[in-house]
């Protein structure tokens, strides 16, 4: 039986899905056994970035709005959770309330930040969103005087982990002969949220709203002529994208137990954008792949030190510098080889070139 015939067989498909599901469930233990616990933590972070990349994908990939300040929503979600679940304000609300709240607050900020940008195009939009990202970060860094809300650059410590009753994810638990350390427990929470994000993204992609976004991305004037309320649709894109970021932020705060404005710099917004573009803008699978790759790659490159030792017998290039050099090189090479991303969106290939370079635009 040929491969494609195999794949289309519903029985095989179902078996494949079951195998994948089992692998995903067993992953943290398999990873710890082979690579060590730090890689389980890296996997957890990768899952958070999957959510972020999917959120940005809605804004950049589906709706074609170049957002260079996306990390602001991550920050807003994180601080919403932290302020309401730590000694900072003395409030300790339950996480079941705070996680959706983080997403909702981020959505609100999405609308707030999106509203002034509605008339802007392309790179102007980029710089304004960049500015908003910076504004949020500066506010978080400075809202410690005259009234101390965010504790400024010192950040918020002792944030409550996800806990219910006496059961806390920040402690290790034993179950069925396996040890669930915090990184394992959080893995499952993050996995559930990431899967949820993937499902929502896929549903959105094939919905009326999704098609409206793509219509705006491809030709805003025509879309508006077709009766699409571009203003509302754009705001919806910002809001939806922001909710993913907000949820991821709230989870991040509970996971780390400490947040400070240092985690929400411009370079982090840029990294999420790289994940989306590299993976394949607009393609959910591509974006997930991009997120995993760009989280794992810098970590894998840490081994460049011992690798140099075993190849050359000595350190030729300072490992931390070599790591960054290789990372930059990887970005350049990946774009030169696959400019539409590793898994470009099928739709993009079908439509007129939308987000193309000036040269092509001018050529019509």
């Amino acid at each position, binding site marked *: 039986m040929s491969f494609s015939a195999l794949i289309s067989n519903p029985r095989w498909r179902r078996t494949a899905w079951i195998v994948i599901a089992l692998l995903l469930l067993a992953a943290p233990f398999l990873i710890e056994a082979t690579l060590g616990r730090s890689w389980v933590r890296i996997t957890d972070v990768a899952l958070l970035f999957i959510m972020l990349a999917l959120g940005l994908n809605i804004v950049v990939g589906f709706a074609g709005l170049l957002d260079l300040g996306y990390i602001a929503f991550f920050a807003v979600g994180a601080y919403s959770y932290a302020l309401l679940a730590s000694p900072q304000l003395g409030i300790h609300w339950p996480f079941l309330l705070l996680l959706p709240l983080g997403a909702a607050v981020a959505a609100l900020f999405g609308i707030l930040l999106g509203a002034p940008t509605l008339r802007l195009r392309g790179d102007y939009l980029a710089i304004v969103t960049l500015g908003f990202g910076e504004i949020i970060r500066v506010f978080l860094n400075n809202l410690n005087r005259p009234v101390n809300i965010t504790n400024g650059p010192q950040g918020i410590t002792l944030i409550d982990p996800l806990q219910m009753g006496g059961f806390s994810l920040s402690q290790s638990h034993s179950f069925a002969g396996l040890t669930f350390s915090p990184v394992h427990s959080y893995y499952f929470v993050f996995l559930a949220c990431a899967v949820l994000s993937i499902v929502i993204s896929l549903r959105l992609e094939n919905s009326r709203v999704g098609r409206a976004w793509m219509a705006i991305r491809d030709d805003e004037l025509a879309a508006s002529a077709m009766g699409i309320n571009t203003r509302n649709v754009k705001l919806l894109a910002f809001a939806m994208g922001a909710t993913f970021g907000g949820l991821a932020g709230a989870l991040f705060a509970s996971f780390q137990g400490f947040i400070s404005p240092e985690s929400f710099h411009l370079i982090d917004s840029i990294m999420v954008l790289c994940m989306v573009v590299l993976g394949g803008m607009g393609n959910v699978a591509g974006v997930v792949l991009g997120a995993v790759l760009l989280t794992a790659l810098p970590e894998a490159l840490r081994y460049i030190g011992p690798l140099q030792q075993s190849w050359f017998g000595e350190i030729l290039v300072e490992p931390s510098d070599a790591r960054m050099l290789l990372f930059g090189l990887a*970005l350049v090479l990946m774009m030169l080889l696959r400019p539409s991303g590793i898994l470009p969106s099928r739709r993009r290939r079908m439509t007129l070139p939308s987000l193309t370079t000036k040269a092509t635009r001018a050529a019509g």
Partner: protein
Amino acid sequence: MEIFAQQLVNGLVLGSIYALVALGYTMVYGILGLINFAHGDITMIGALVSITVVQLLAAAGMPAAVTLVLAGGVAMVVCVILGVSIERVAYRPLRRAPRLAPLITAIGISILLQYSAALIWGKQYIAMPELIEPTRISIAGAQLTDLQVVIFLLACLIMASLLWFIKTSRMGRAMRATEQNPDVAGLMGVNTNTVIAFTFVLGSAIGAIAGLMVVLYYGLGHYFMGFMLGLKAFTAAVLGGIGNVAGAVLGGLLLGVIESLASGYIGDLTGGVLGSNYRDIFAFLVLVLVLVLKPSGLMGQHSGDRA
């Protein structure tokens, strides 16, 4: 009043530096539609090369004027070679690619430049040897040094020269044609590849001069200095209308003055509730306001809708 004059002077000189770097951004954007994230780092390379040349020549006992000219010259050569190579290797293949692809490439190049600099010059802050004792001048109660005047005049001079060049010379006409419509320009006999390469030559050379000015003015260089500088310059370029040479300088000067005045007066204006730490927020809010009212920047030339 003299405080205000001083703040104005501070802002104009700071803005001149932003303007010099913004010129590189705006020219490349005008021709290619690309935000060259690596431009700030080209400026950084120019800055660090200048320091090295000055360190070597000053130790050899060369007179200050010669040292400066040589430092600027070497920096320009290095930056131009870098800029043109980067264009050839990383941006040219992506000219017909989706628009965000060269953006990501530019980010990759930026990282490469930063860490190559770290390998060559190390990660500490490098001091620029003091060459000339600054001469103090006083205008309207504001204290100036001759260096500050030079920087300001240089920005204006370079802008004027660029405008004159683009308006009158053949290459300038070719640049304008390529900016409007590269394919038709090609049909008219313009070698667009050469024109684009030349744009990078100009941009990188001006970036190198900007780098030299920065290290002279602030006294230090660092492998990471291009990031913030590039960001501010890019903001300035957009403020003035990206793609517009005069706009870049106007945007730069304006941004410098806004930052200066904001730092100086936010505290007084808000009765002490907000302070100079909100300076960057203020600058960005002004930017948003300008763009909301004039979506293509102060001197931008966008006509009609573009998808």
